[in-house]
């Protein structure tokens, strides 16, 4: 079972034309590599949605650390926007978290 995730989404420079949405997300994952002697287990895909629309699709390799943290800066945005981050690993396990921009 996938462990917890935690996300913070905040608006930087709110109200101005140069507003940015800053997203910081923590995820629990062993991220084991082929060299660890354990079965290969790592996050392969990362998807970020802003109000239901996919804005980032990323491919992650085994080189990323255990329990990784990612941060993104999305152009524009407003308070209350729904940000959803989900991951899919090589075993087909998945987890997601959704929160509103503060």
């Amino acid at each position, binding site marked *: 079972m996938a*462990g*917890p*995730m*935690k996300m913070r989404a905040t608006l930087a420079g709110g109200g101005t034309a140069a507003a940015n949405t800053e997203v910081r997300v*923590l995820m*629990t994952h062993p991220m084991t590599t082929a060299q660890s002697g354990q079965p290969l287990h790592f996050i392969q895909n990362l998807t970020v949605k802003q109000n239901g629309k996919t804005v980032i699709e990323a491919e992650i390799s085994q080189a990323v650390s*255990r*329990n990784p*943290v990612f941060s993104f800066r999305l152009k524009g945005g407003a308070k209350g926007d729904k940000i959803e981050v989900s991951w899919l690993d090589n075993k087909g396990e998945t987890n997601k978290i959704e929160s509103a921009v503060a």
Partner: protein
Amino acid sequence: MNRFLSGLLFLTWACGPVSAQDTKKEIQKYQQMIAEGSPVELFELEGEALWKKPQGPHNVSLEKCDLGQGPGVLKAAYARLPRYFKDADRVMDLETRLLHCMTTLQGRSREEATKRVFGNENQPSEMEYLSAYIASQSRGVKLAAGRSHPKEKEAYELGKALFFHRAGAWDMSCASCHGEENKRIRMQELPVMSKPQFARPIMATWPAYRVSNSQFKTMQWRLNDCYRQMRYPEPNFASDATIALNTFLTVTAAGEPYRGPGTKR
């Protein structure tokens, strides 16, 4: 020899592009960077789930556990430990008290509850998760370990004596490494733990996540590992000696607002 060394240090400081001050600043920058990406919050979430999970022969959670502020009160509990508990007639630190609740409330045997007190990177221990969650509930609260009850005073004095007591294969004491200012091992500064100004920032950030091995570490582990490094026999988990040392260190750090669980190299 000392004069030669300080002369050398001065030269490095005066002419070298990287001074001791710069090194210190770079280390601080690195520590700040790792703290920003710390997965400590994930451990707190897992700990909260464990705190509320019914377990043991009595099939109850730890939610009625009295950590010193009343049954189930977590706010400020960690910052006021170790302290004397009347029901156990003993000074206890967080892990010792948790063990007490596991054996009394949940009806688990001490043997079963201590089978795995220190985890590894693949499977953290129950104590580690719980410590992360409970300590996080003291953020902003000033450290105030018990120091009024005779047993608390006794623990403090014993801890102080242990800190300076040299023994073991290498004839070392805690003070052998933590007794002199401006010493470090590689990037790790060695705080003089018997002085408040050094003990404060350290005690305010333990328990902590260590990035170098992806593990969450408790204070009992920290003391246990110091004893391992000094080549002493392994101290018993939740023993009077480890609680006394923890009492001595936390009392020395009294008044510092708690800001952990921290992130270490």
